[in-house]
C-alpha cells in the first residue's frame, strides 16, 4: 500500500493533540485527561519510523512545553524516553493484536507518569494529585479508537 503523501496528517495530529491538551475540562476530571500527545507520537513512531523518531518526539515535546507553559524540556524528555522504548520494541508491537497493543501503550503511559513524577521530585516541584495516575488507563482505552481512526485516514486513496 502506497502511503506516501499521507504525511500531512502528522503535523495535523500533533496540532489536534495540543489543542486537546489545552481544552478546559471540569476540575474534578482534569486529572483523567489522557496524554494525547504521547498517543499521537506513539502512533507515528510505530507506523512511520522513517519520519518520526527521537528528533520528532523531542521537537513535539518542546512545542508542547511552550504551549502548556510547563517547564521547558519536561514534555520533551518524557516523549523522547517513550519514543526510544517504542523504537526498541517496535518489531514486536507492530504485530500485537490491537488490544494487547493498547495494554502496552498503557504501560508506557504509566512509565511516563513515573518519569514525570521523578522530574518533579528531583526539582522540588509539587506532585500532581493521585487522580493523574489514572490517566494512563484512559489513554490505553483510547488507543484502539485512535489507531483505527488514523489508519482510516491514512489508508484512503489519494485523488
Amino acid at each position, binding site marked *: 500500500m502506497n502511503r506516501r503523501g499521507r504525511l500531512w496528517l502528522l503535523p495535523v495530529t500533533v496540532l489536534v493533540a495540543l489543542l486537546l491538551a489545552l481544552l478546559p475540562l471540569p476540575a474534578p476530571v482534569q486529572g483523567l485527561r489522557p496524554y494525547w500527545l504521547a498517543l499521537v507520537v506513539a502512533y507515528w513512531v510505530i507506523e512511520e519510523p522513517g519520519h518520526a523518531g527521537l528528533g520528532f518526539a*523531542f521537537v513535539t515535546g518542546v512545542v508542547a512545553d511552550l504551549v502548556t507553559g510547563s517547564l521547558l524540556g519536561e514534555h520533551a524528555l518524557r516523549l523522547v524516553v517513550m519514543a526510544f522504548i517504542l523504537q526498541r520494541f517496535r518489531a514486536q508491537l507492530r504485530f500485537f493484536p490491537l488490544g494487547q497493543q493498547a495494554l502496552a501503550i498503557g504501560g508506557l503511559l504509566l512509565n511516563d507518569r513515573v518519569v514525570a513524577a521523578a522530574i518533579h521530585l528531583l526539582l522540588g*516541584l*509539587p506532585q500532581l494529585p493521585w487522580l493523574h495516575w489514572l490517566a494512563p488507563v484512559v489513554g490505553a482505552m483510547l488507543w484502539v479508537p485512535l489507531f483505527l481512526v488514523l489508519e482510516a485516514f491514512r489508508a484512503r486513496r489519494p485523488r
Partner: protein
Amino acid sequence: MPSFANPAAPRPGDVAGTLRLLAYLALSVALIVFDHRGGWLTRARETAAVAVQPLWQLAGLPARLGQAMREDAVTRSMLSEDNRRLRNELLVMAARQAQLQVEADENARLRGLLGAAARGGLDVQLAPILDIDLDPSRQRLLLNAGSRDGVRQGQTVIDAGGVLGQVIAVTPDTATVLLLTDLDHAVPVSISRTGVRLLAYGIGRADRLELRNIPVSSDVQVGDVVVTSGLGGRFPPGFPVGRIVDLRPDDSQAFLIGGLAPAAQLDRGRDVLLLRGTAPRARAPEAAEDASGEPGEGTADEADAPGAEPPDGEMAR
C-alpha cells in the same frame, strides 16, 4: 516535507540509537535545568509565546462558544431574576460605598495631617480569562488581553475577593498571570488586625497559601485577615490576600507556620481586574526576600497597612 524528519532510523536497537537517545536526553535535561534556574530562557520563551498565541486562542474558542450559547439560551424570566438580584446587590454595595467614602475622606484628612503621601484611587482594567488548561502542576492563568490592550508585565491582578497574582509575561493578545498559589510566588503581607508583617508563599496548591517564620510571640490568630503590605513595591497595599485557617509550629518549634485560604476565587471562566498605575519599581523576588528580614517588627508599618485596608476589603464582601 516535514523538516523534523529523522533520516536514519530504519534499524534502531543499535549503538547509534542509544547515543541519539543520550544526546536528546542531555538536551532535554539542559533545557529543564536552565528553565528551572530561571533567567536564561525567559527571552526565548517570550518570543515563542507570540508564536503559540493563536493556538491558545483556538483552544479557548470552545469554552467561549459554549458560554455564548448558554447566554443566548437563558430565558427571559431568568434574565429578569438575575437583573433583580443584581440591582439589589448594587443597592447594598452603593450604600456600603457611601459609608466607606466618608471613612476614606476621613482617612485622607488624617493622612494629610500626618504628612503621609496620598494614595490615588483605584484605576482598573477588566480582562477576560482565556478558558484553557495549562500545565496542572503550575498555578498560572492566561488572560485574553495583551500588550495591545495595554497590559504590562508586573501588573497586579485582582478579583472581587482579593489579589489573584501578577502578570509575568505579555504577548500582543494574551497575558500570563502567575497566581499567588504558585510555588514560585511570594507576596509581602500584613495582618490587617495587628499590622504584623509577614510573607505569604504559594505552595503549588490552588486552595492554600502559607505564612512562614511567624514568631511565636507575635499576635497572630486563626481567622485573621491578611492583606498585602505594599512592601517591595510590586503589590499595592491593602488588598485582601486570604484568611488564616490554621497555625502550627514549624520543625524548629521557634516559629509558627500559618495556613491561608486565598481570598480571591482561583477558578476559571470569569473576568479579572488589572490594576493600572502601580508601576513596579523593583524585581519581585528580591523585594520579597528583603521584606522577609524582620517579620515581627511590624509596628512602624501599622499606620500604613490597616489604614488602607477597609475600602477594598469591605467592598469585597
